[in-house]
């Protein structure tokens, strides 16, 4: 260990190059990770941050809340299915809402406060009460943009008074407004007049399953409707799964590049130190000790790379505009830190065979 640590300490210039390369890769990966998380959480909050464990959709909706439309008969079918504890309708409307401070793109969610699909992330005030129309809880993002408790949010001539604030409940990157099904329906009729007169319809049904019951089991009970878990409902939102898989594949590729960079770096270092390693082996240094030194150096370089990359990524996160959906999660940082360490160790491991093959006898006599 004495060798490995002193080499880094006295050869900072050389190790600066590998640390810089790793820092840049970690920076790239963390920034992409923040973007992936931001997009995912921003798109799916409305189906993740509620008490619903599953959602049921009309047969032709392909799991899309917006495309789905269900009549009272279908809602009852879900409610009566075995394994369902609570099931209530959910209405969704993407539109522009007006508040005293301006006009905003919002997603209006109509839910039954006593039923399923109700946000569980209240941070301030209260949710609309059961049977109460004309009130709403809004997402934190909307509050950040200037809407406050006590304001009216209006769609056309229908308005709801803000009584509470919830967090992490965006839908397709738009802040949500949670109100009663009646108020939602009135707002819907303002922008979609063709629905005027339809009083009982909903988009989908939010389900609280009995414990241990899965969405698949309920699907089995009601064959004609589509039942998805809350998680699957999030992934079924257009673009979410595609974004995640695209960004994740870039992230994994970058981590593979990190392993390759470390492998190349240590291959060069070992090549350059063949003579020294031969002499050290001749002096009685076990191969194991030389190998452990290289792996330790890779771990140190990776750790420093993670720290610098994380700081740089956070720094960038602090200056990007709010509209860019980035989310820095500790879980993602830990995952990427572990992956980077593994990449470093795997990269360094490629040099171990090379070290093992160095013949101590070459230390004497120069050439044979």
């Amino acid at each position, binding site marked *: 260990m004495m*060798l490995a640590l002193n*080499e880094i300490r006295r*050869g900072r210039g050389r190790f600066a190059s590998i640390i810089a390369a790793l820092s840049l890769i970690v920076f790239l990966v963390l920034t992409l990770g923040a973007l992936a998380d931001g997009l995912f959480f921003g798109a799916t909050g409305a189906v993740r941050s509620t008490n619903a464990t599953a959602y049921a959709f009309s047969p032709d909706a392909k799991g899309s809340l917006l495309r789905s439309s269900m009549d009272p008969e279908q809602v009852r079918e879900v409610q009566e299915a075995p394994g369902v504890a609570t099931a209530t309708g959910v209405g969704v409307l993407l539109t522009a809402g007006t508040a005293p401070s301006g006009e905003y793109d919002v997603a209006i969610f109509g839910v039954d406060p006593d039923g399923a699909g109700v946000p569980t992330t209240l941070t301030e005030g209260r949710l609309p009460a059961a049977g109460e129309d004309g009130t709403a809880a809004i997402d934190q993002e909307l509050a950040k943009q200037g809407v406050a408790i006590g304001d009216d949010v209006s769609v056309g001539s229908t308005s709801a008074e803000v009584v509470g604030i919830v967090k992490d409940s965006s839908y397709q990157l738009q802040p949500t407004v949670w109100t009663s099904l009646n108020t939602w329906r009135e707002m819907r009729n303002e922008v979609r007049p063709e629905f005027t007169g339809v009083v009982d319809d909903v988009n989908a049904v939010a389900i609280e399953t009995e414990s241990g019951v899965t969405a698949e089991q309920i699907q089995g009970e009601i064959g004609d409707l589509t039942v998805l878990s809350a998680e699957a409902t999030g992934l079924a939102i257009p673009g979410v799964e595609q974004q995640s898989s695209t960004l994740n594949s870039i992230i994994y590729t970058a981590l593979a590049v990190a392993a390759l960079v470390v492998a190349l770096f240590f291959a060069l270092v070992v090549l350059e130190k063949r*003579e020294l390693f031969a002499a050290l082996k001749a002096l009685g240094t076990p191969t194991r000790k030389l190998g452990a030194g290289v792996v330790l150096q890779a771990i140190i370089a990776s750790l420093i790379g993670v720290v610098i990359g994380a700081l740089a990524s956070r720094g960038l996160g602090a200056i990007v505009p709010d509209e860019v959906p980035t989310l820095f999660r500790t879980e993602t940082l830990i995952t990427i830190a572990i992956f980077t360490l593994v990449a470093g160790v795997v990269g360094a491991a490629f040099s171990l065979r090379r070290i093992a093959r160095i013949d*101590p*006898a070459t230390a*004497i006599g*120069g050439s044979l």
Partner: protein
Amino acid sequence: MNENLEFVPPHPGDPGVDPASDATSHKDAILRVEDVSKIYSSGDTEVHAVSKATMAVDQGEFVALLGPSGSGKTTLISMIGGLLSPTTGTINLAGTDVAGLNKRDLTKFRAERVGFVFQAANLVPFLTARENLLYVSTLQKRISRKEAHARADQLLEELGLAPRAKNVPEQLSGGERQRVAIGRALMNDPDLILVDEPTAALDTKLGRQVVELLAREIKQRGKTGIMVTHDLRMVQYTDRVFEILDGELTHVEQPSALAH
């Protein structure tokens, strides 16, 4: 300085004693090499790098292994130092059958029982002179950490390197580096010190100083040393000279017999 001197014809070219018969007269030798051969086969041909070498070196002796390049002197010293396994024959150092050790035990053997001085000092470039000495002490368990620190300081002092203890090899002269290498070889208190052409990278004057110092350190400590060299001028600091040619130890003589 040595009584035997009288009995050796003091002019060059006169062959000395055959090493094999010489070996029988050294009953208490600390190092005994018997019938050692190293054969490399490449395709159908066999190359006898060393054939049937027999020699004995007493405790406290500093001997030279003299031969031109390609004579097998490097191969022979590598086998004695546990870096190469002989094809046949036995090597015994203070009761240890070197040729019979496995790879792991050979590594330990080299760390604890043998000190090496290489052609180019081959110091660890990113360790100071003192750390270079301390490094080899981490490879053995006989000397405690505390003793090792005291020993390193004492060695550096004796070798005139105390003011340079905190310098890395890059900041040292060629002669100083070779002195650090000598200190490193002595650090673990080995039974045998093997020296490989220590003057190859130095000019004649510095080379002489280094070999002289080496001889003095080995003598003072009652150590046993073998120096591989092709340089006749360096053998005057040794007790006896083994000549090797084409893989065969031809004769052993007094350094004065080779003086000119």
